[in-house]
């Protein structure tokens, strides 16, 4: 998976690093968004239980929270 971060090319190094980290978090959110909520739906003999998915969604919320935190840090470091 590649992430297009070229707008950071003209940023100061510290700001560019913050954007790269934010980009990594965004990519993870984009993956979770797709792999657990999109794609062909098939009822398998074993399909992940809703409780398991909820655990991942907890993780997803944590990631989104960290995006907010990183965005704030980007402001303070800028």
């Amino acid at each position, binding site marked *: 998976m590649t992430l297009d971060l070229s707008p950071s090319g003209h940023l100061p190094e510290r700001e560019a690093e913050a*954007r790269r980290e934010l980009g990594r978090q965004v990519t993870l959110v*984009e*993956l979770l968004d797709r792999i657990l909520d999109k*794609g062909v739906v098939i009822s398998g003999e074993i*399909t992940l239980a809703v409780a398991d998915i909820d655990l991942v969604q907890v993780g997803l919320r944590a990631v*989104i929270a960290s*995006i907010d935190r990183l*965005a704030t840090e980007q402001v303070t470091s800028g």
Partner: protein
Amino acid sequence: MLHLYAITEPHPTAAAAGIGGTGIVSIPCGRLGLVVSEHRTPAPDLTEETLWHHEAVLEQLMAEGPVLPIRFGVRFADAAALCDELRPRMASLAEALEFVRGKVELGVRVLEDNEKPPAPRRSTRSGEGARYLLERLDRRNRAAAVAERLRRNVGDLAVGEQARLLPGKGTLVASAFLVERPRVAGFRRRVEVLERSLDHAALFCTGPWPPYHFVDRPI
């Protein structure tokens, strides 16, 4: 148990190891190929590493031909049971495979830029409740405007689009575009140019992804 990754055309795959280092095989099922790996455990571990491993297999398959990604977490006891489950949908799945041939999905996520927040709407007559509702309305209008601008800027390079407004905290828009491979670089350039002209928002373009958002029906 067979862990199912994707539906492809019925051809052998050179995809490397699947989840847990298991071998990847493609099982023919009529006009479809079912890409699986064999496991002893009935359910996959739900870790970030496992999810990325599943995704990595799909990205290798994309290099071999059209791919319909399966939502994570489906396992069958044997190939016959899996093929039986898909048989009634074979025609529509084959049609969906044809639709995504030569195309990839790109994601564009628009985050609110805390560095340059938009000016809040002021009203001396508003109470707390009214102010809250006005702010929510402002945010939704801002998300809709950004989504429309994104569509105007890159829509002609895509053959399909799905957009969600305000899908989560800090995110104005999460869009998925289905793009023909030769147009990917041009699409990214347009997103870069758009970001430079946007106030109060940061854009991230991710992908190419398998066509997760476009497996059900032609757009």
